[in-house]
């Protein structure tokens, strides 16, 4: 007989831990009100079930999902787990319960509320990963390449192949400062490892090429097409900290300096931009 009291699960925050929680949820025939990570737990009067991470259970859940529901669903679960916001575990758990009761076709039922919640999480994670493939920048430190990123979601597993494929024979590191992990690659090995405190190597000598790039960037804009709204839509400001070419534009009182763009030309550009925005209607929420 399932327990009727309000119950929450606590687990260690790993994917295996979460799969163990899924296992317990099925064996206890209950969906908990919440699933939390040990470390973020606040004192609570609710009944807490502590999940012990059990690799055997995790493996069973994994193969169960893969065999019974197919790769698409497993992929969705894995991807959605990289989503970094409260409540993701319960959303995924509900999705898994629904999937087991309704079968394989669940992956395509994106009009359904439970499914669309998880689907949207996957899309958000995928978009964040794409942004990091675009905007992660490396600095050279004695031949090794270093990049520091601050992603909203845990995207390292998703961007791994992209960077490893193109820089197979380089040594590089991408440090995710938000989640305390790093992707480290050498020509021989690749690994994503947890990193607590990292002393970022000094890259101040790597000025020449970033300087060239900054200068190049300044010269490829066409003054009479100046359109900052469009740029911001494609390249949101939260990434500018990564980018040598626009980092200085974040400083207060920055005046855009376009090549052979007089103040007048730029003003004309701004008017153009304003006009475009009126024409396009809803860009930027107006």
């Amino acid at each position, binding site marked *: 007989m399932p327990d009727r009291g309000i119950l929450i699960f606590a687990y260690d925050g790993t994917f295996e831990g979460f799969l163990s929680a899924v296992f317990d949820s099925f064996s206890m025939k209950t969906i908990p009100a919440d699933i939390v990570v040990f470390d973020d737990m606040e004192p609570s009067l609710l009944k807490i079930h502590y999940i012990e991470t059990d690799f055997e259970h995790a493996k069973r859940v994994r193969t169960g999902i893969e065999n019974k529901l197919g790769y698409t669903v497993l992929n969705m679960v894995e991807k959605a787990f990289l989503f970094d916001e409260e409540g993701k575990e319960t959303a995924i758990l509900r999705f898994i319960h629904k999937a087991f009761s309704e079968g394989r*076709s669940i992956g*395509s*039922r*994106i*009009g*359904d509320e439970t499914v*669309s919640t998880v689907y949207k999480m996957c899309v958000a994670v995928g978009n964040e990963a794409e942004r990091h*493939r*675009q*905007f*992660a*920048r490396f600095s*050279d430190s004695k031949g090794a*390449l270093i*990049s520091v990123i601050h992603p909203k979601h845990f995207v390292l597993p998703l961007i791994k192949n*992209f*960077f490893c*494929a*193109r*820089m*197979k*024979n*380089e040594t590089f590191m991408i440090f995710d400062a938000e989640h305390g992990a790093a992707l480290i690659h050498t020509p021989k090995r690749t690994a994503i490892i947890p990193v607590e405190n990292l002393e970022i190597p000094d890259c101040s000598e790597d000025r020449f*090429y*970033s300087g*060239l*790039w900054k*200068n*190049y*960037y300044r*010269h*490829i*804009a*066409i003054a*009479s*097409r*100046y*359109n*900052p709204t*469009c740029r911001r*839509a*494609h*390249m949101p400001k939260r990434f500018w900290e990564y*980018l040598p*070419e*626009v980092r200085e534009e974040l400083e207060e009182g920055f005046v*855009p300096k*376009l090549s052979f763009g007089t103040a007048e030309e730029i003003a*004309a*550009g*701004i*008017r*153009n931009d*304003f*006009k*475009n925005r*009126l*024409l396009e*209607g*809803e860009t930027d929420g107006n």
Partner: protein
Amino acid sequence: MDMYEKLEILAEAAKYDASCSSSGSGRSSSEGMIGAATPSGCCHSFTADGRCVSLLKILMSNACVYDCKYCISRRSNDFPRATFTPREIAELTIEFYRRNYIEGLFLSSAVVGTPDWTMEHMIEALRLLREEYGFAGYIHAKAIPGADPVLTHRLGLLADRVSVNIELPSEKSLVSLAPDKTKHNILEPMGLIKTGIEENCEDLVKYRHTPKFVPAGQSTQMIVGASPETDYHILHLTESLYKKYGLKRVYYSAYVPLQEDALLPSLDTRPPLLREHRLYQADWLLRFYGFEASEIIDPKKPMLHPEVDPKCSWAVNHLDDFPVEVNTADYEMLLRVPGIGVTGAKRIVRARRSQKLDFDSLKRLGIVLKRAKFFITCSGKTLQKLPETTESMLWAITSPNRMGGFTDYGMEQLSLFEPVLTGEVVRECLTGEF
């Protein structure tokens, strides 16, 4: 001349080339190589005018022997000149690539001496990059019209994409504005590349180690607004380029006046950005939405509608085909609904396999109903009463956006941006007429 200055001059001269895609090719690197190309491409930055930067776009040289009237690098222009050595190009590409600034190289050049000489040096730069530096990333190269066919072929074996700019949409304009270029000159390499790609496709099936020839296909670009051609003319030309020459992309570039010339629009003309935008929308309809140029535009109204996009414009004139039932309509018809794009149509098709769709579930799929709601039904229901005539439909679609640009209403509020836009300026920008 140091690297900074050189890069400045040669980037400045290359920036009017619109193409910057890095898609359509797949390659991975093996031992001792660097770089990879992914079929979807990747944009690494965006310029202050909002265009994507995916490739390091430079000219090899801007010391041109030609005298095209619209071009900044024309012979008769007093302008600083520079030339990169092949090794400089290779180094720069590799170092930018390692830092994830770029996806690859876009190499173009002014004609230095003869077309053959120019082409040989471009090939040398690419060969160095591919062979000595082991670069497996994306390369887009411009074929120089008038060069030997053998050279064009060699360029095609090194690059992912090759393009030849058609420059102006008609032969007449070409004769008057670019006297050193001819239609034959431009179409010849285009034809060569087309046959090359076709032969290569056959060879790739037959032999395992055939080197790939222009795997990402070819593209072209034309200037819009420098000469008097209409959108009707341009779209039909585009369509025939896609059909006859198998092009991957046709780019349009709104004419930015850089030179004073009696044959050209005056220097204070604004680039017809809205016109360019509409042309791109129409171009997308040709490539991804199954439209024919003759459906999008008719010779009686040879310019695209400034106020609504071409698909909307088609839809309001074909109200008999609407509303479309989302639960049963085929994919091709869903694509024709204003407000539903390729992603949306695919999601609808995927989702309706296992459930009936209503307006709430459409919202959950991420379909924007702002315009679509006038053209669809869900299980026979509409979201609101549908306008019945073309005029009322047009009004319904555009009314939330009605603003000063089209009437004089609201112009006072723009005084923040002195001088105030007059109705005339706005119309000029809308129609691209001068």
